[in-house]
């Protein structure tokens, strides 16, 4: 009798903890002009930002939610607290961070990673950054890695922020981009000067610890000509019975011949609505590489977009998502070829189990200006049971004949032939299935930094049982 192999859900218990702390000082829940005003006051926003937030709120109130989005029935915005006052000023030494917050990040392994393998770290706790620091070598090269609100008030960077902030992701891009613009708080600003190759990655870690709250950080990265940066974003939260919301925004400017790698490992708790927006614009000869792992969240709607704006610009998108019980992960990517000789490659893997829903959604658009462009998309989905659901919804829009666009997609389960072959080579069925699933993820995990690849292997823990008898 053939028995099904059991693959466990992604184990997020490591992230599901919180330390006792003083009651949080929260603004009222909901999104009103008065609340937006309060956020502006708390932030000491310049006048242009006050107006910007209020205008964004008007757009948010007028915009409908897109009808193709995954259901957001469990998300009641009147119950979401958009801003939590911080009693802690941002520090640049972990010793100065309050004990309970420091313990949280210690347990997530952030200070250790900083010591061992990073050029700098930013740590956000609820609505505010609590820690930001960077290695002296990077600072000496002129790299700027600081909290974005500080940058906005710093005369050296104020104009840059004003010139770039929410220009790539317009306020009316979608309803939750407008919400982000109205209530954004925290996040990082990165500038890598011309020709600087940042040796170790920078990492921002976002922790949403409060119940029934939202996190709306904004990350703005500018990688100047011929420069290189690897930026890592991590996120997690403990699980509560009430819905939480993450509507952050990432804007990346990759200048001529620069390369940017953006790795994101998302382990939000399963009460989280992750409605994030990420976008990069790449100039001549530049390259953006997105590495994305989606494991947590109740509902995710996340499609990093790459606009290939200069001749020969390139984009790569590599992702893996694992949807278990109760999860609806609607993820993918958008790539716009808007200049000649641009190229793009998408490679995605998804695993659905125990009623989890995975949807891969993409668009590759080749405009009339993009003569000589090439694009290749490969997406594979593994279904581990019939309770689950897996969809692929790709769009290819080609507006010039001087282009080559290819797409391939596969959906299925672990093949009996593969199991048979591996068992004939001496492996048990359990070992064979474990090997196949790891192999299925390998294309993606090999792109991750080694510590994250190991983390991913831990996350997709395998529990095998059963045999053919």
């Amino acid at each position, binding site marked *: 009798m053939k028995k099904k192999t059991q693959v466990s859900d992604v184990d997020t218990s490591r992230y599901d903890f919180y330390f006792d702390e003083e009651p949080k000082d929260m603004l009222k829940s909901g999104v009103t002009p008065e609340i937006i005003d309060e956020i502006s006051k708390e932030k000491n926003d310049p006048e242009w930002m006050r107006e910007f937030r209020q205008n964004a709120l008007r757009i948010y109130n007028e915009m409908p939610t897109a009808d193709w989005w995954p259901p957001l029935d469990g998300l009641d915005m009147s119950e979401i607290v958009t801003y939590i006052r911080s009693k802690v000023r941002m520090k640049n030494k972990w010793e100065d961070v309050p004990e309970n917050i420091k313990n949280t990040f210690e347990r997530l392994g952030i200070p250790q990673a900083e010591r061992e393998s990073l050029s700098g770290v930013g740590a956000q706790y609820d609505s505010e950054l609590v820690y930001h620091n960077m290695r002296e070598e990077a600072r000496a090269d002129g790299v700027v890695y600081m909290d974005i609100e500080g940058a906005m008030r710093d005369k050296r960077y104020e104009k840059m922020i004003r010139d770039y902030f929410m220009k790539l992701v317009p306020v009316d891009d979608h309803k939750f981009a407008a919400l982000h613009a109205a209530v954004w708080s925290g996040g990082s600003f990165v500038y890598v000067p011309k020709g600087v190759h940042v040796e170790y990655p920078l990492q921002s870690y976002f922790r949403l610890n409060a119940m029934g709250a939202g996190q709306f950080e904004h990350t703005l990265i500018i990688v100047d000509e011929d420069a290189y940066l690897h930026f890592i974003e991590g996120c997690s939260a403990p699980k509560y019975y009430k819905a939480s919301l993450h509507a952050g925004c990432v804007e990346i400017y990759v200048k001529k011949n620069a390369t940017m790698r953006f790795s994101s490992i998302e382990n939000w708790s399963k009460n989280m609505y992750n409605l994030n927006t990420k976008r990069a614009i790449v100039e001549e000869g530049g390259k953006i590489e997105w590495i994305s792992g989606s494991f947590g969240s109740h509902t995710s709607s996340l499609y990093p977009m790459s606009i290939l704006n200069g001749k020969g610009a390139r984009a790569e998108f590599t992702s893996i998502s694992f949807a278990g019980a109760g999860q609806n992960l609607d993820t993918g990517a958008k790539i716009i070829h808007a200049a000649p000789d641009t190229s793009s490659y998408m490679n995605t893997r998804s695993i659905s189990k125990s009623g989890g829903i995975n949807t891969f959604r993409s668009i590759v658009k080749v405009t009339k200006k993009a003569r000589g462009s090439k694009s290749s998309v490969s997406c594979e*989905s593994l279904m581990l049971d019939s309770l689950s659901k897996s969809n692929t919804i*790709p*769009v290819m829009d*080609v507006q*010039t004949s001087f282009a080559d666009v290819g797409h391939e997609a596969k959906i*299925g389960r672990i093949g009996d032939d593969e199991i048979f072959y591996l068992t004939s080579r001496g492996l048990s069925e359990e070992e064979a299935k474990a090997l196949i699933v790891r192999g299925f993820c390998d294309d993606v995990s090999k792109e991750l930094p080694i510590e994250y690849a190991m983390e991913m292997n831990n996350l997709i823990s395998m529990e095998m049982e059963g045999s053919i008898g």
Partner: protein
Amino acid sequence: MKINHLSVPTWDKCSVNEVEVPLGSVLPFEPTADLPSGVLAEVSNEPCKISTGCGEEFSHALQNLPKQVFTVSKKCSSALRLDFDFKKSTSGSRIQIHTLPNSELEVVMNYSSSDSGTGAVQIEIMADDNSRINLVQVVDAGKNSMLINDIGMTISTNAKVTLTQVYLNGAKMYGGAHAELLGEGAKFDCNTGYNLKDSQLLDLNLVAIHRGKKSVSDIKVRGTLSDKSEKIYRGTIDFKTGASGSKGAESEEALLLDETVASKTVPLILCTEDDVEGAHGASIGRLDEKVEYYLKSRGLSEKQIRKLMAKAKIEATIKNVRDKMALDRIRELIK
């Protein structure tokens, strides 16, 4: 009226979720029918009760037209031929083809029109157990014409529907096909080919829903676009829970011959059953440089190469057509 709805909507900005067509009141049109023995023809006023590729709004627009019902009781050696020649006013037809168990029929539908004729046709196919239907559709309409070609199918145990569509002439051509593979071992084999030029528009929505165990679908779309022509291909393979052992594949090859063409492809695979194999492949772009170089080295001009490629796409599409008259007509049209 909105037709050809994508099975699961996506970004509105992509303009692929459906298409708006201007369709006014529709006058009934009865095609010329050449009936082989074993086929019974009747007229019915029953509304369409099955899902079709173009969708409910289109079914509603045609619901008051009389429906010609063809019931097939045996294996027919010759084809049922239906010729549609639409004039200037908007003409519509409803056709139902019902193959009883173990019967078999080839149906050839020829669409033609006056210069600016508008045709709206809905075909319901009911393939009972172990029956076979081979439906061949050839579109050769006027330069300013509009055609909506809508099909709905139910395919029972071990039955097979083979659909061959050749879109050649007509200004605006909309094609929808929806196959419900209900029974165990049900099969749907679809080959759609096109040669588009000038400002022609082809808008397709081809859907295969797997409900029966070990059901098989294969959708192949291929063609060439030149001048300012445009094409949208929406394809869906949907594996429902219980369709274990099923296989579905869809592929598209779009050869773009001029810089001014536009091609959109949206191939969906939806899945709620683990024991299935679903695959999709698409290749959209210009002619491979090596192929072009080889053909030129054999003495072919650019014009001849374009013609050859267009012809090759259609030849690959019509491999399942048995009716000699239909084959001759298609080959004459692509000469």
